[in-house]
């Protein structure tokens, strides 16, 4: 187990500390591996609302408002949209708790995931009432999977209420590299957006519905678990990727809708990035 503080090496643009920030909720949209081949076979995509660094608590998801993928091979043509709601299956996610919460799984057969190109998975969830903060949280989430190395629509702006546009392919990052992105609200840059970054400390195990194994990283200080940064004046940010695995990036309260059912609503943007060791 490594000491997180020694390795973190975050590269921050326009960074400031954010004392007193609330806990880092993260809407996972987890495919296992983001860089795949045409013969990699079937896999499950897991939608879990949780805290990925500490592993708990996890929150119950309502049926998503939208869950789809946008597939494009190469730089010609338009992305093909595939609605995944009909393929979504509710399950009880345990994480590290004794009782489960509602989460969702999409089983993707190999025939659906064997063509070259990018597959941008998008989840638009129902707002979640975080009672301890007396507000709703709605995290618009993107995960990009590539098949075969031919790029497509990984950097396309979708115009979501809250969105992170990647400036690096989220599936093609060496450990120790830098990932860059731009925070957007309805397609427009969100200056100085508040951003949380967390390492997925344990992988979700689809078979047991538990986190797999032991946490990989120990944070020697609370500020090094869920980490907070700011976008710059153009909405752009950059983070280092000091360890292989999945990293979650969430830009908070950037969407235009601020109220839901009489309470405050935070429309967040989440994107998932996978770092791979050089061997």
């Amino acid at each position, binding site marked *: 187990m490594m000491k997180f503080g020694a390795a973190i090496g975050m590269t921050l643009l326009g960074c400031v500390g954010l004392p007193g920030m609330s806990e880092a909720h993260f809407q996972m949209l987890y495919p296992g591996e983001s*860089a795949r*081949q*045409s*013969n*990699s*076979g079937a896999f499950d995509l897991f939608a879990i609302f949780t805290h990925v660094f500490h592993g708990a608590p996890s929150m119950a998801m309502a049926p998503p408002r939208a869950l789809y993928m946008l597939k494009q*091979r*190469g*730089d*010609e*043509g338009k992305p093909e949209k595939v609605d995944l709601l009909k393929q979504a299956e509710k399950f009880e996610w345990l994480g590290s708790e004794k009782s489960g919460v509602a989460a969702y799984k999409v089983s993707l057969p*190999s025939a659906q995931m*064997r*063509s*070259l190109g990018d597959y941008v998975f998008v989840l638009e969830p129902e707002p979640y009432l975080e009672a301890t903060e007396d507000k709703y949280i709605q995290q618009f989430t993107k995960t990009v999977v590539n*098949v*075969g*190395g*031919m*790029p*497509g629509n990984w950097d396309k702006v979708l115009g979501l209420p809250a969105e992170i546009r990647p400036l690096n392919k989220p599936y093609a990052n060496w450990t120790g590299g830098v990932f860059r992105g731009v925070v957007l609200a309805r397609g427009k840059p969100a200056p100085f957006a508040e951003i949380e970054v967390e390492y997925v400390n344990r992988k979700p195990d689809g078979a047991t519905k538990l986190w797999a194994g032991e946490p990989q990283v120990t944070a020697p200080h609370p500020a090094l678990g869920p980490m907070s940064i700011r976008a710059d004046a153009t909405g752009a940010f950059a983070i280092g990727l000091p360890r292989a695995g999945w990293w979650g990036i969430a830009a908070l309260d950037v969407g235009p809708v601020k109220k839901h059912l009489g309470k405050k609503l935070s429309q967040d943007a989440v994107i998932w990035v996978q770092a791979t060791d050089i061997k």
Partner: protein
Amino acid sequence: MASVRIEDPRRRKNWPFCAARLRSFAGAGLLLFPTTAARAHDPILSCFDNNNGTITCEAGYSDGAPSAGQTIRVTQTNKRLILEDRFGKNSSFTFKKPNVDFVVEFIGDPSHRATFDSEDIGK
């Protein structure tokens, strides 16, 4: 049927990240001539079994450029030609599944070629 000899002295048997086994000179070109980055893309080739007696192959480049109109060649492992044609507008080509092991070759231009063995085909 004509016989085609595939010259592939640098063939890599266990390329971990690439759909195709590449024999491109593009990488060397990038190292030697870094100002020509616009052409420093790798060819990509991937094939899958449609489970209806046909195989579909897709090809293109690592920068997203298409393969439409470029050559696909299918040979037996003993180098005997099975077919030679061109990728369609959508950078793919479908053909009847040979009843022998075969090798698919994407011939973009003399410096951009990739091969794919039938043993690597996904279902």
